[in-house]
């Protein structure tokens, strides 16, 4: 981490910057934000997943453990229906279908540790 003092429009401000892998962290006046700098052409993993570009791809929003797979391949799910339950930091998180459609693939199983952004299931609209 590097601390940086800047003056903008005559006002002194204190911030910090740090880089880890493809992510650069910025902090200014109590606000923290990140910017992803992926190799050109490829979207940043974390950013893609949180923004949820493709609603048919169910991705792990965090690293953690799969504790329940509710849906089965070939079944029809409606938007908002629970597909998978994960655990991280001792809390359960329910992953729900973003769209109504058919479950094409389930790519995880109960007990499995998954990484951030891993595709856990695929749907077909």
């Amino acid at each position, binding site marked *: *981490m*590097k601390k*940086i003092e*800047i003056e*903008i*429009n005559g006002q002194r*401000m204190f*911030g*910090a*910057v*740090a*880089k*880890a892998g493809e*992510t*650069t*962290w*910025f*902090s*200014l*006046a*109590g*606000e*923290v*934000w*990140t*910017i*992803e*700098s992926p190799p050109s052409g490829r*979207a*940043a993993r*974390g*950013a*893609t997943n*949180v*923004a949820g*570009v493709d609603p048919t791809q169910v991705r792990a*929003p*965090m*690293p*953690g453990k799969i*504790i*329940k797979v509710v849906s089965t391949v070939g079944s029809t799910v409606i938007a908002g229906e*629970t597909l998978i*339950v994960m*655990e*991280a*930091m*001792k*809390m*359960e*998180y329910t992953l729900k279908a973003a769209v109504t459609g058919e479950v094409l693939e389930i790519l995880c199983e109960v007990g499995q540790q998954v990484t951030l952004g891993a595709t856990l299931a695929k749907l077909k609209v």
Partner: protein
Amino acid sequence: MRRIQSVAIANRGEVAVRIIHACRELGIRTVLLHSEADQGTRAYRMADTRICIGPAPTNESYLSIERCVNGALAGKADAVHPGFGFLSENANFAEAVLDAGLIFVGPKPASIRAVGDKIAAKKTIAQAKAPSVPGYMGDDQRIETLVEEAAKIGFPVIVKAAAGGGGRGMKVIRSREEAVEQIASAQREGLAAFGSAIVFLEKYLDHAKHIEFQIFGDSGGEVSYLFERECTVQRRHQKIIEEALSPVLTPELRRAMGETAVRLAQSADYQGAGTVEFLLQDDQFYFLEMNTRLQVEHPVTEMVLGVDLVKAQILNAAHEFRVWPQETLVAHGHAIEARIYAENPYAGGIPSTGKVLGMEWPEGPGRRFETGIEAGDEVTPYYDSMIAKVIVWDETRLRAIKKMKATLAESLVLGVHTNIPLVREMMSHPEFIQGTMTTQFVGSHFPDGLRARERSPVEIEFQNRASNSEFGASSGQAVESRRAAPNVWISSRAWSNV
């Protein structure tokens, strides 16, 4: 009873650090019982002796009675401090510690069973004629029975893991349709976090305040109450902001609740630090549960009373302590604690893990920081996401709120996201400032955390200059940042608060 010369700490994170501080001040050697995943933590670096008790998963380390006891023996400890969470409220653990010839820093196993197990405690408090919330605490734990009982109580109903705490294994059931799913989820969380799937049900009070009383019993049988903490600001039953004292209690109500808490403790022959939790709605208080351990939020009580609860626990375990007489306890000023969680408030509070690249806490009068990690340490997905606590004290509640806001504005964590921006927003909310918030506060006003916002022109300018300064004007990063700046409003994905 012999003097305690070394204490084994069956815990991790900031509470392990808190206990190490107390031991050092008392001239006591510390033995940290840690998992393989916790070698890069502050407590690990601070402890006098370190004993690895197993791998990262909690049931193979921090939740293993055998490994914790063996670790304490291997480290030649005289006593075991369980901290909070993990085995701290497990009577079998307390018993195993005693059976191994060690001192347990906490109540006797029988006391834990009488008031610590939530189902048993409800029966105890019913005998003590204290009001409790309508509910079901039967032995029949079949899911069909639980659903029927929930319907009988009337929705909304809350389902809780009997051995639980810290918001884990607790779910609100709003309708019959979601009853099965929520009960099953609470059972699983209870099993995973505490090793027990037993749950109970109770009526969910929807405009209540969470008020808890700190009590302390000494080895001579005296019990005092150290007033209350208000912990109303919770999300998913996980506390976020705690304060002492509550802004709403009248002296009469305070005394009635405090005396109820003391009665409960006395009926269980309680020794050491404990907390009796109540819900307060329309000037009626209902017993919620008793926690037979130190609480996460104990610092706010320490700040307004000028006491050290952890040292008192250790001295009491060595029979070298007399509890503060009730009439000498007077609260001064106001203290607020904010729990800092590694999570992204701009993404619905999703946990954030990774290496902490930078961490700074701004010292100042009446400010206190408790953390178990430092820059360079890893926040792992194995444990609770609380990475720090920020505590402030000032003469009045309003000043304490302002101090908290100023302190958080200067606090810095880089490498993992934290809820600091969310806590700052909460501190500015009129309902919080007035002190009229209920346990619905977070759900009503911050249901999904914070909305991601665009970077301000000043922040973009800073980002560009910081990129130049960090990576050199010729780096592609800096160029890309400059080029991207005019389009930041649209290309929000690459700039998002991921």
